[in-house]
């Protein structure tokens, strides 16, 4: 089964709002689950998996959050897929809390991918209104992380 085929299956699942899909063929069994942090392939024992893999955007989970539609809120989104961290290190306080006043360029959170620590900066000065994720949660590409109320 090639990547294109898998992409088609994922598209099909999205369109039909399916969380899980299992397909059994003589040589290969495939189980796909959306909303999981890592793609899951099911293989017969002894079979080495194909080294091709899905690009991240195709494995995108359904969004975790509903962003309030209040006007003038700035939505901070994830530029990459990874693990969301609210603090620089486990023993330190969160970069920001709901209600924190931030300057433009101030670090809001970290997204880790392949041990690359990506600091996400405040795109505008303002107040943190909502933080949608908790520590160590997976984030998907373009997923809303926080909302900011820009300083007028």
């Amino acid at each position, binding site marked *: 089964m090639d990547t294109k085929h898998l992409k088609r299956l994922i598209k099909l699942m999205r369109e039909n709002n399916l969380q899980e899909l299992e397909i059994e063929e003589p040589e290969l069994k495939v189980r796909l689950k959306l909303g999981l942090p*890592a793609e899951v392939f099911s293989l017969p024992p002894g079979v080495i998996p194909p080294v091709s893999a899905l690009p991240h955007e195709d494995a995108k989970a359904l969004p975790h959050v509903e962003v309030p539609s209040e006007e003038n809120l700035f939505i901070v989104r994830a530029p990459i897929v*990874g693990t969301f961290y609210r603090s620089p290190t486990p023993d330190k306080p969160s970069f920001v809390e709901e209600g924190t006043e931030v300057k433009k360029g101030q670090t809001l959170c970290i997204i880790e991918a392949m041990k690359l620590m990506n600091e996400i900066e405040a795109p505008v000065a303002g107040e943190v209104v909502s933080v949608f994720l908790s520590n160590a949660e997976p984030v998907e590409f373009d997923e809303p992380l926080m909302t900011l109320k820009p300083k007028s």
Partner: protein
Amino acid sequence: MGKQGWSGLPDIIYSLSSGSALPTTLIGSKIYSFSEVSSTNTIAIQMAHEGAPEGTVVIADQQHHGRGQRGRAWYSPGGVGIYMSVILRPHLPPENISQLTLITALALAEAVAAATGLKPGIVWPNDVFINGHKLAGILAEAEWEEANIRHLVIGIGVNVNHTREMFIENHLPEATSLKVESGHEYSRAKLVRKILLNLEERYLEFLSQGFEPIGERLQELDGTVGSWLEVISFGNRFEGESLGIDSTAALLVRVGEVVRRITSGRIKILYNNYHLISHPSISKNSGLSFL
């Protein structure tokens, strides 16, 4: 920006600041060397904020607060190790940026192999090991402004001439150095040159050809294949057998009959091939920490 040069320079600094130019065109085009710093990454990030160009290198003989992953410390005594940070400003799709941690690990492992004849392996995503012990680590930190990367700082720490006693006294039984492994001391300056040259070659190759050719070479040096791993990813913990790094830089782990593709989180080798063969009863708690 920091000062450049001092009197009574350690060999590594002297050689880099006064010796012949590096055989690179990008990485190391500017080198700022220090005898002591808090952390080369901290200084490089500050320089990046101030507009330091891509390829700028910060190197120190000693770090007082050498940093590792998620707040862990990196043991950085003077006179024996390599502690340096490189500023990059890659123009790449966001999903490819994190592959740079593996590319750095590959450049590092290849440089060590070429300079010493030892056979280091890579433990996904960015550690370099020899004989089951940690030789070198990487701390990569990026800053993003909305969907754009502002800069990426890659910190590299290599244990070169440390003695075994130094690791024991500092409660680092999992660490090793080139000296411990080979019985020889090595010139840090020569190693730095080799690492920067390799990193430049691999980085430019990655920018022009993508990850695939590099991925094939990485698989040859993959130090986890066949090992039994503990994986902590997105707050979940599970165990499984490493099937190695795939062509996109993710780690494949077989959990029962399912293969999981790991792109974030950390792994720990609980048993490797050697231990399985010679010590089938090895306790799980004696697993090496590769975090």
